[in-house]
């Protein structure tokens, strides 16, 4: 049984993200090459991709990607649960192509799903809340099933293997997205577990993360007290939940969310002009338990854009580059250059400084 409690997973790894702010689709071949270039940062035990805009035929339906250990018991339970709370308009096995270095360990399945929003009371985002609850419920209660992607018109593709094998396993070159994130994993725990690979996703939020969150215990308690269940046994999943709480439920902008997670130091805040100081002071008091500590570089994506940032003293690398409508964020400049040899404005953001790319159409 792979999908049960393991020790906490921490991650080293290489990350890369790209957005075309004009929403032009890019197929997955470029990011596959970029990620493979960072194989020095991985160990062949986990890689993954997420792309936005890949299911234009289902623009209003939640695309649920699920790992099944078999299609008998767990699937029946998941189908029943989904049918009880909404409508499955389409479901199929995600097409995969076994590679010499990558055998199928779980059966990746996808649903296009519409929740019955009138079943939820007291929420301004009933559909999101219902899907979130279903994801938490399936992942914590149904053995042999793991929902690893649950947003609209987007999808995660991940497995335990080298980046190129995982890419070819799913043939990500067949998908066209305007945002891609990718992650090359060097696991120190649960190496064989597909669920432990990045990106992590909840609803519209996807996260790739290089590092280790030393504040995990505090952050976990904070997200759990807000109704989330940590089921993936990796520190990265709390990032997705923190973005969901602060970004979606509290309505904070991306730069304010980053400010909550990697705030300025008190010395800096004390020296700010009054209006700014008041905001930063209140942010730290209110969101202390959401603050993330330890070394990390993170890129988060939604259908509206991407944001990259590092920890407050930048203990993990992060490089940014641009070319026209395209914005790249990566662990390594070389990876960006493989994808796009003509990039410009290459720079390294300061510790804790958010780098934001928003769609403009």
């Amino acid at each position: 049984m792979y999908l049960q409690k393991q020790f906490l997973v921490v991650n080293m790894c290489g990350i890369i993200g790209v957005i075309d702010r004009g929403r032009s689709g890019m197929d997955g071949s470029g990011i596959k090459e970029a990620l493979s270039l960072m194989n020095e940062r991985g160990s062949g035990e986990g890689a993954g991709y997420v792309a936005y805009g890949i299911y234009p035929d289902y623009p209003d339906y939640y695309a649920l990607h699920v790992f099944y250990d078999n299609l008998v018991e767990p699937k029946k339970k998941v189908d029943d649960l989904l049918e009880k709370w909404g409508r499955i308009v389409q479901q199929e096995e995600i097409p995969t192509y076994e590679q010499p270095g990558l055998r199928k360990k779980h059966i990746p399945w996808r649903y296009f799903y519409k929740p019955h929003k009138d079943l939820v009371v007291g929420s301004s985002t009933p559909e999101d809340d219902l899907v979130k609850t279903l994801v938490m419920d399936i992942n914590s209660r149904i053995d042999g099933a793991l929902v690893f992607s649950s947003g609209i018109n987007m999808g995660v593709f991940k497995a335990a293997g080298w980046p190129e094998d995982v890419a070819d396993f799913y043939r990500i070159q067949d998908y066209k997205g305007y945002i891609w994130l990718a992650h090359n994993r060097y696991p120190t725990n649960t190496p064989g577990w597909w669920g432990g690979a990045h990106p992590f996703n909840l609803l519209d939020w996807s996260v790739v993360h290089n590092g280790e969150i030393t504040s995990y215990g505090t952050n976990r308690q904070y997200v759990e007290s807000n109704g989330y269940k940590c089921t993936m046994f990796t520190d990265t999943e709390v990032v997705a939940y923190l973005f969901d709480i602060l970004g979606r439920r509290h309505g904070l902008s991306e730069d304010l969310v980053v400010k909550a997670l990697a705030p300025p130091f008190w010395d800096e805040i004390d020296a700010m002009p009054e209006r700014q100081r008041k905001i930063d002071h209140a942010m730290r008091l209110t969101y202390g338990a959401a603050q993330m500590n330890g070394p990390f570089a993170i890129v988060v994506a939604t259908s509206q854009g991407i944001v990259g940032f590092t920890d407050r003293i930048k203990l993990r690398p992060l490089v940014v580059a641009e070319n026209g409508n395209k914005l790249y964020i990566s662990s390594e400049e070389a990876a960006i250059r493989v994808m796009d040899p003509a990039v410009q404005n290459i720079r390294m953001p300061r510790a804790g400084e958010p780098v934001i790319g928003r769609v403009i159409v």
Partner: protein
Amino acid sequence: MTLGSVPLRYKVSIDHDHCMQCMRCVDNCSYGVYRVEGDKIIIDSRKCTACHRCISMCPRDAINLQERPVDYRSHPLWTAEAREDIINQARTGKIILAGMGNALDYPVIFDRLVLDACQVTNPSIDPLREPMELRTYLGKKPSRLDFRKNDEGDVELVTELAPNLKLETPIMIGHMSYGAISLNTQLSLAKAVTEMGTFMGTGEGGMHRSLHPYQDHTIVQVASGRFGVDIDYLERGAAIEIKIGQGAKPGIGGHLPGEKVCVDVSCTRMIPLGSDAISPAPHHDIYSIEDLAQLVRSLKEATEWKKPVFVKIAAVHNVAAIAAGIARSSADAVVIDGFRGGTGAAPKVFRDNVGIPIEAAIAAVDHKLNDQGVRNEVSIIASGGIRNSADLAKSIALGADAVYIGTASLIALGCRVCGNCYRGLCPWGIATQRQDLVDRIDPEIGGRNVANLIHAWTLELSELMGAAGLNSIESLRGNRERLRGYMLDEGMLKVLNVEPVGA
């Protein structure tokens, strides 16, 4: 004389080869152990409390002290103490009084919790070279913030924040009243907290005028006797604390004997000279949680909602639910005092048997408040038996925002935990109002010593956090991932919500 005398508790002797007859021991002992007859120093060991004042003042190390020099027949159940307590009560028919904290040999949970450090997968942080943030704000915090854009398109904060206390280090000094301790002791503590950017409690004894220069670093207490409380007192404090209970004696009140009520104490407490100051067991205007909420609101109204109001309770079995109730009032912080908390005087049966350890209480309260989604509504201040920076770090990792220390700060002033505070003869000048004894503390030097202690713990906490890969105190708070239990049973691990070592 049916009962006769019990064996000596301590046996004091002087090594006459070393003694130079300077008489410092005679002068320093306020319990009357030593007296001079001719050119000889005569010792009455029966009066000794093992306060070590004579030993620390002897320039020749000529004094020797032995505990229990006379053996009883050994017995695992009928210990010497059990036998002596019975003899004592057979003689007097009274409740046995005791000082300082719980003296029974319960396992110390702190000593079965170990902290974490980084290796390879993440770098430890060197606090000498990188920022390390211990600044702590105590008080209500909103659960979310709302912003709006003004006409110029700038983001503005809409949410109003309640006043919080700002601490430069999460170590405060707990409430010890003027009366229970001397003015010079309070002055020493006040100087120390002012220098270190933190706070001390006044206790239920009012605020002596010589503390006024330090009032911005004091928390004034309102307890069941209401001693020393008027609007001037409330307005002077940086915060107000309602004391419901105390870890050393949960469920009962206090009693300051009239002998300790000198002119200054009587003025500060606003009670007649020489009268016993008795704090009732409950507040007679608080018989339920809604009554407490009313008092919190009344104090806030009286001080125009400018000051945080804390509520202190003893750690008892149901502490988590009580704290959740307090969180729902307008209170800004709940102070939990564990069963090892110190006291000037408590019935021994309470001191040693009532209440629960602070470690379990912090974890239970933090868990319950998180469970109910109200953790942001109150800060948690832990107290009762915090001995060093490791206990401090572990308290915060279990969920506390800050701690109060009491006994530790007194040890920094000379206290040797002899436990005779209630007798008013403290030879160190701490738990006494006798002027010649009080004068033994110079508040300048005392303040320096206490500030040193807080500074040292602050440095050690920074190092522990840096080693664990944390550079702000928020990320240690409630971070049980950084703790492991060593030889704790499964039930205890569950209460603490901590994994065992190796997991």
